[in-house]
């Protein structure tokens, strides 16, 4: 492999690869979002993308190396958990291109990093949640207890409080290990307890665990808010909206750029302004989103765009002022 001298990929030997993280590409959430972008790319260009789903912690680096060795010209890592692996492998394969989502702190000439302003999107759905709640109590279920998820929570609280300063926001985290991304039973448990305490809208940022959140909310006749992908269709009539984190865009863009030779390294930050985060409105939740909710959310959106509202980023100071 060391002998290989691939420069910028010519279309013929262009070989993209993606490494999904634990939870798998059908987690109905984060990884699935990436998969959607990958599918779109394949459909448009006809180029097959090599895929691998990590199922345990030790596989990440090996999978990445294996992709590089099997001739991949660009490798996309999904999630911050792959940061260390990609840093090592990118250094060992300087003539290959790498890209990673949710990581913004690495530095390599052949590595592109995507960071999202989840707090902005969460703010938007927080506004919707506060308006849709009849009890003035809303919930948040996070996956693994890490700053990134606190960032979601904080933006959400900000949105809720901007509408109703006295509303209660119940918050729970699922766990401290990566298995917290894939524990729907616990997600359902936590949601039930929040609902029993009066919450009637529950937002999740918990990957596969969120399936349980949506299920529990639907079972109880309450509302859930999806995350990452558009989850409105998972339980139509029970999902108020979804906080879209356009990881599909990141995936699609990465491969598109690499294929056309316009791949660049560095950190890309995607917020509301860049179309990287948004809220979902479609036929599945049309009946839930009243005109007043819609206008309030759109107003919040334009306020963020105009800079009138600056949503606090938890990760900037690990504090949440709301």
């Amino acid at each position, binding site marked *: *492999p060391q002998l290989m001298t691939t420069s910028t990929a010519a279309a013929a030997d262009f070989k993209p690869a993606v490494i999904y993280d634990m939870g798998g590409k059908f987690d109905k959430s984060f990884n699935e979002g990436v998969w959607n972008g990958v599918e779109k790319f394949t459909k448009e260009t006809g180029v097959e993308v090599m895929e*691998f*789903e990590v199922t*345990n*912690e030790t596989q990440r680096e090996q999978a990445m*190396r294996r992709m590089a060795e099997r001739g991949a010209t660009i490798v996309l890592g999904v999630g911050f958990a792959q940061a*260390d692996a990609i840093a090592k492998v990118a250094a060992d394969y300087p003539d290959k291109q790498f890209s990673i989502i949710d990581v913004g702190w690495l530095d390599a000439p052949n590595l592109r990093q995507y960071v999202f302003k989840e707090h902005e999107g969460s703010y938007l759905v927080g506004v919707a949640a506060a308006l849709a709640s009849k009890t003035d109590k809303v919930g948040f279920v996070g996956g693994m207890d890490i700053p*990134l998820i606190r960032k979601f929570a904080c933006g959400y609280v900000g949105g809720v409080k901007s509408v109703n300063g006295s509303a209660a926001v119940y918050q729970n985290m699922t766990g*401290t290990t*990566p298995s917290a991304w894939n524990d729907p039973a616990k997600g359902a448990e936590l949601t039930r307890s929040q609902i029993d305490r009066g919450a009637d809208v529950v937002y999740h940022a918990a990957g596969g665990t969120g399936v349980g959140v949506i299920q529990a909310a639907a079972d109880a006749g309450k509302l859930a808010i999806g995350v990452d992908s558009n989850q409105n269709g998972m339980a139509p009539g029970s999902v108020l909206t979804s906080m879209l984190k356009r990881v599909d865009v990141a995936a699609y863009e990465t491969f598109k750029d690499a294929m056309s030779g316009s791949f660049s390294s560095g950190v890309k930050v995607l917020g509301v302004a860049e179309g990287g985060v948004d809220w979902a409105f479609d036929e599945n939740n049309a009946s839930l989103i009243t005109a007043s909710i819609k206008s309030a959310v759109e107003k919040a959106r334009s306020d963020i765009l105009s800079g009138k509202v600056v949503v606090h980023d938890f990760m900037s100071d690990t504090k949440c002022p709301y």
Partner: protein
Amino acid sequence: MNASSLPRWIDIGLLPVLNLIAALTVAGVIIAIIGENPFVAMGVMIKGAFVYDGALGYTLFYTTNFIFTGLAVAVAFHAMLFNIGGEGQAMIGGLGVGLVVLFLDSVLPPLLVVILAVPAAAAFGAVWGVIPGWLQARRGSHIVITTIMFNFIASSIMVWLLAGMLMAPGQMSPETRSFADGINLPLVYEVLQMAGFSVSRSPLNLSFVIALLACFGVWYLIWRTKLGYIIRATGHSERATIYAGHDPAKIIMLVMAISGALAGMMSLNEILGVQQRVILNFTSGYGFTGIAVALMGRNHPIGIVLASLLFGALYQGGAELDFEFQTITREMVLMIQGLIILFSGALAYLFMPAVVRIYSSLRKPTGSG
């Protein structure tokens, strides 16, 4: 009709092979059921394990893990102790490596830190083995149950530490910071490249050599020392051991310490060999696979090396399956492993009646003639 009435080559050669064939046959049928060609899959696996550039290195890398955990199970087995706590002992061994390195890597020269980390892995693993040993020897609690519980306890301790005080600042995964540069066991490909051979990169490292030395050590201990003799005696008859003037409780604790130390040393391969930081779940079930390895290897170091090689190939080849087939993932390997444990462990003597019948009908004509 029992094992001792058969020649050794049948007992330790033919029967294990038959069991393996049975397990692989069932696995093949399942692969066929899910719509893939088992022979193609087998071919991919073998290629993935031995043929590709660097594949052999990976295979031997996994083999190293299995040698350690297999030896751990086997040593305990010689004292008739069923140590299924290898997983937890390996985790705690890794913790030992981590603590030593994280505390010392800024003060001591790398080489010295590495030299200290090796016994730390063994010592921490030994502690995690000796506690269930003590509970069995002195308090009469069943070692199987306590070692199961200790796996969970170890796992929780690791989560608690790695997601808590040992978590690297600014990190979002439950893992420690990376070790300082140079704190790792030499990689085999690097050493060979320095010696002028062209070898492709793989994580195979010095632990493999340590594992082989451990094999020899275990063989020597069990069959060439008085302690080994007493360990085996304890396994067969505690009463006879007491009669002979030894304290079985002490032997049990000692054996569990040795067993735990071997399991703990598995972490050398993963933590000090490749990861260079302590991560969660680096044991990945290797501790449990060690049981299969010991069963297949009939608790003998040579058997264990062979069985480890088989499982190493299965793991590495299995990863290759993952790349080649949409429908097959690593879990296929887990399934095959389950079948192997079933056939070579619980159903070890499934084929014996038939083999005995065939053997005695073949032997009769020559015997009487």
